[in-house]
């Protein structure tokens, strides 16, 4: 019969991979270890999907209270965030634009990031342009099916702020995957918390 430690090992690679969508490698390993430790040593033993869901909730909570906390006071205003996001869209979109001879500063094929060749590579590049809390919001919304309300709770901000965060960040990643349709984040949504393996 597997032990609690084996339970924790069973979800660690998946959880670290999830955390790497939001923070860099070392922080992801650290957060994933902390989260599985907490969940695996709870009084009630969780298994399978329940364990993964609980571990991801814990990791998201740790990130939201740590490296992916929404900046207060010195943070960018909503308008500035939107502008930054628009700049990011331009940069990402520009990277795929056909180059002409007049583009004297266009990088040579050797200089271009090889990740631009694939969808997930472009998504990675787009995520790098976002702040950790924006990445956490986008991963929670698009991958995990978390509602805007719950993202607000997770980040400790009002719903309206959560909507603005998503609206500011979504175009960057949407454009990266070749889609320019942005969901209406302010619309009431059903909570569909899913575990994507």
């Amino acid at each position, binding site marked *: 019969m597997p032990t*609690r430690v084996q339970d924790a090992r069973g979800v660690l*690679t998946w959880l670290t991979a999830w955390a790497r969508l939001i923070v860099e490698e070392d922080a992801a390993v650290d957060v994933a*270890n902390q989260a*599985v430790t907490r969940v695996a*040593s709870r009084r*009630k033993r969780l298994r399978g999907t329940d364990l993964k869901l609980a571990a991801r909730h814990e990791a998201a909570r740790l990130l939201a209270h740590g490296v992916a906390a929404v900046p207060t006071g010195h943070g960018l205003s909503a308008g500035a965030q939107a502008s930054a996001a628009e700049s990011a869209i331009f940069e990402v979109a520009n990277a795929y634009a056909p180059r002409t001879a007049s583009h004297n500063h266009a990088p040579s094929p050797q200089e271009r990031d090889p990740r631009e060749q694939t*969808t997930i590579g472009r998504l990675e590049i787009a995520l790098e342009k976002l702040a950790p809390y924006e990445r956490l919001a986008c991963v929670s919304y*698009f991958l995990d099916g978390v509602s805007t309300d719950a993202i607000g*709770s997770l980040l400790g901000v*009002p719903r309206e702020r959560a909507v603005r965060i998503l609206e500011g960040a979504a175009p960057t990643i949407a454009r990266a995957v070749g889609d320019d349709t942005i969901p209406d984040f302010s619309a009431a949504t059903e909570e569909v918390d899913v575990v994507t393996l």
Partner: protein
Amino acid sequence: MSSDNLHDAFALLLRSNQGKRAALSTVAVRTIRRRVATRWTGRLGAVVAVGMLGTAALHGVEGGSDGGHSATAPASPIATPTIGFAAATFPLTGGPEFVPALSELRCGDPAPAPHPVEHDLSLTLRLGKAFALGDQPASEGPTTVEAVVREVTVANQGAVATSGVDFLVIQDGVIRGMISGGGVALAQNLGGGTVTTPRSQMLVDGVFCSDGQEVTPANLAPGTYDVIAVGRLFSTAESVALSQTLGDTINTMYLNPNYSADPATLYLPGIYNCKQARPWRAALRGCLPEITNSAVVDEARGTVTVTYRVKDLVDQFSAVLVSDPLTVDLVASQDVAVATSTWRSLGSLNSVEGFTVRGDLAAASA
């Protein structure tokens, strides 16, 4: 819809990231093993405590006409150890979780930010049915609002208590007043169901302000306001022990540390005051040994220790949830004839029924 494309892209990236295996750190392995081992040690210790408490209670019963007063120092070890029990020790004045979240708020403060989900529980508001009186159509009464607590996952939460879910009346982002909801409720074994507070009528006459000591009318004008629910939900050894000992029908008002049955009076087992409190079924921590043999009061330390079945304490937590706002019309009671008659007939509606267990939950609890 781009959400699907984005979900697929994120899923691909997630799978790609999983190509790199992660190893559980030595610290994590040790921590998990230590915590699990500590819990087992605690359970074994609890078995010892159960035996000691049983012995102590027995001494109390045999100790003379003043009963539990003698139930203090256990002298002999385990009588009959029982697996599955543990001992909860908590202050006679109660743990901090029993203070309602509302008591930390004041009229004029900024409204708390919505925080409707935590620890797999959600708090939402919904319009309730108007109260009906006789043949009066319910639709003519004032608006009622009820708070709903739901589990958002299927994970078993065990016995979840609340120190009260109350309502805040908000205007321009500022707290303008408060409306009492349900008070302390001890045992809400959600079991996948939902739990609601009593319906509260949206009458400006019932809106108050409190500084934690004095309660004054908020003197709001009738009109449209935002209403939010705020409440603390928790599961602690104390709440589980109290719920198992007291059940959920007892008068739990005095479990709130901010209330005292009589501040100048001592409530201890065997003392006249505990006997006096019996008829009104008030839950007083100092009187627990009058109710169960498994409770012992330590007067010197100001604590009481009670044994409880561990199965209802799944995961200790304490969370303050704040619902999203609901826009409602608050009316004056004199403007609503039906409402006035209903109000007078029913008296204080806010404390009529305590928490209402609904549907399959009722069956599960039975």
